[in-house]
């Protein structure tokens, strides 16, 4: 049973919704404006807040700002009349915020309160099947993947997802979470995006005053994911010196906040992800062997898009249907266009395909039904691939990586943010690599 705060200025809606939420087994408090919501959060802790985006005395973002100063930030679901708010949410809020579009149904409430995802309403009437509510594709490699997700979902084994950048590792993590019978939420964090100083606090939390700047208690992601799923992206970018602490938590299932004396039991499945291969992980020694075996109890390799070209028409249709739903348009693919999409290798995988379709969508006449595709999909990724084809036997992976980063930086005239984006890594990771090589050169 969770403590829920429902914030909406429509009193009839809050009355009926609270009845339904109570029927689903949760405790509900109602606030009909921001002022009432502030009062509620001051005196009571909530696990989940259902929040109307526009309130008579301000925006939902004001309340989210206030919540972010609390010790334990509850999960927030914004209730909005328009799906375009999704882009605002992803830009301004963290991973603990999602959204629902009016008109709501009981199933919507059940899913968000259980921390699971579902297909959009448009997708329900679509011919595209979304496996586990989020995965698209009927090819043989995907059928194998679905079987693995189904099997591991019934266990509490830790999973390591491997695959090239852009194959959809976080989406697969969501699918595993959906396939699991867990009560808790899925919490995601990117190990490559955190500084060495803050990673311990992010993972394990900290007590007030435990270090300079620790003005309040912080709950780490292990505790936030209690009874649920913790997704650790770019796990191989975690500093080696932090890995023994992670190993201790994985082995003991107890976490000690930074600056605390007592440990706290934690119970969650850990799904980690990396774009390195097993061989690369072993050779480059970016992950301790004992940690690897704890995290990769069930390793899953997600196939690159070029190995499942047959899924491209389904993916392209799913993406265009989503864009149609979000923008109230009626675009459709022609067979020749789907063939054109299938003829390209998509080295940036599904992420690149999605971006290409989004670009084409923007370039198309919104009053028509035809998508204007470019003549070719040449991208910096394709050029990188050409460069990496020039590798010779005997070169080390480090050398190839160094050359790839050098060529990419050259291409974007030294713009590290753009280079990191093209390489599919975080800017922090790129800086770490460059600093490491500089130190090697000096040492």
């Amino acid at each position, binding site marked *: 049973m969770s403590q829920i705060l429902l914030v909406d200025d*429509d009193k*009839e*809606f809050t009355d*009926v*919704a609270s*009845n*339904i939420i109570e*029927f689903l087994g949760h405790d509900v408090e109602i606030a009909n404006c921001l002022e009432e919501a502030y009062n509620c959060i001051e005196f009571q802790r909530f696990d989940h807040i259902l929040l109307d985006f*526009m309130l008579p005395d301000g925006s939902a973002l004001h309340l989210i700002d206030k919540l972010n100063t609390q010790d334990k930030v509850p999960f927030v679901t914004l209730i909005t*009349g328009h799906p375009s708010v999704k882009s605002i949410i992803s830009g301004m809020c963290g991973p603990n915020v999602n959204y629902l579009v*009016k*008109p*709501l*149904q*009981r199933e919507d409430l059940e899913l968000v309160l259980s921390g699971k995802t579902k297909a959009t309403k448009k997708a329900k009437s679509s011919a595209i099947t979304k496996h586990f509510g989020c995965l698209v594709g009927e090819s043989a490699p995907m059928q194998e993947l679905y079987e693995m997700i189904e099997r591991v979902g019934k266990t509490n084994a830790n999973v390591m997802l491997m695959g090239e950048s852009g194959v959809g590792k976080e989406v697969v993590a969501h699918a595993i979470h959906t396939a699991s019978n867990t009560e808790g939420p899925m919490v995601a964090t990117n190990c490559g995006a955190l500084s060495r100083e803050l990673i311990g606090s992010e993972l394990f939390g900290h007590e007030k005053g435990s270090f300079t700047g620790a003005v309040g208690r912080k709950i780490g992601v292990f505790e936030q994911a209690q009874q649920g799923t913790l997704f650790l992206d770019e796990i191989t970018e975690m500093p080696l010196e932090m890995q023994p602490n992670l190993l201790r938590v994985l082995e003991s299932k107890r976490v000690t906040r930074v600056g605390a004396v007592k440990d706290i039991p934690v119970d969650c499945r850990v799904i980690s992800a990396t774009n390195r291969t097993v061989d690369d992980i072993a050779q480059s020694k970016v992950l301790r062997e004992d940690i690897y075996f704890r995290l990769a109890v069930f390793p899953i390799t997600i196939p690159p898009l070029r190995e499942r070209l047959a899924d491209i028409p389904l993916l392209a249709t799913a993406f265009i249907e989503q864009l149609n739903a979000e923008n109230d348009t009626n675009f459709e693919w022609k067979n020749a266009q789907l063939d054109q999409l299938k003829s390209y290798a998509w080295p940036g995988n599904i992420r690149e395909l999605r971006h290409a379709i989004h670009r084409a969508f923007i370039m198309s006449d919104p009053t028509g039904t035809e998508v204007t595709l470019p003549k070719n999909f040449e991208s910096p990724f394709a050029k990188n691939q050409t460069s990496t084809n020039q590798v010779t036997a005997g070169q080390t992976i480090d050398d190839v990586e160094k050359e790839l980063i050098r060529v990419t930086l050259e291409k974007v005239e030294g713009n590290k943010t753009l280079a990191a984006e093209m390489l599919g890594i975080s800017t922090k990771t790129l800086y770490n690599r460059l600093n490491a090589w500089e130190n090697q050169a000096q040492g």
Partner: protein
Amino acid sequence: MQPTQETPPVTTNTLIHDVRNPLNRISMQAEMVKLVLENDMPKEKAIAALDKILIACQDSSAALQKLSEHSRTNNDG
């Protein structure tokens, strides 16, 4: 007659918002009726929810009428 400064401008977005709200109530009240029927709860609860759906249908209709008039005024203007 000039509008006073306190009068908020009526925009298409505001009117669409006014249509969505009763639709949201209809959806949730319909879910309430399903809950009552599926769980053998007192039928008065279902009847109360159905009455609210009927009112919300009238509200939707009125909101759509306003949207239609707004659209006609803007097109003529």
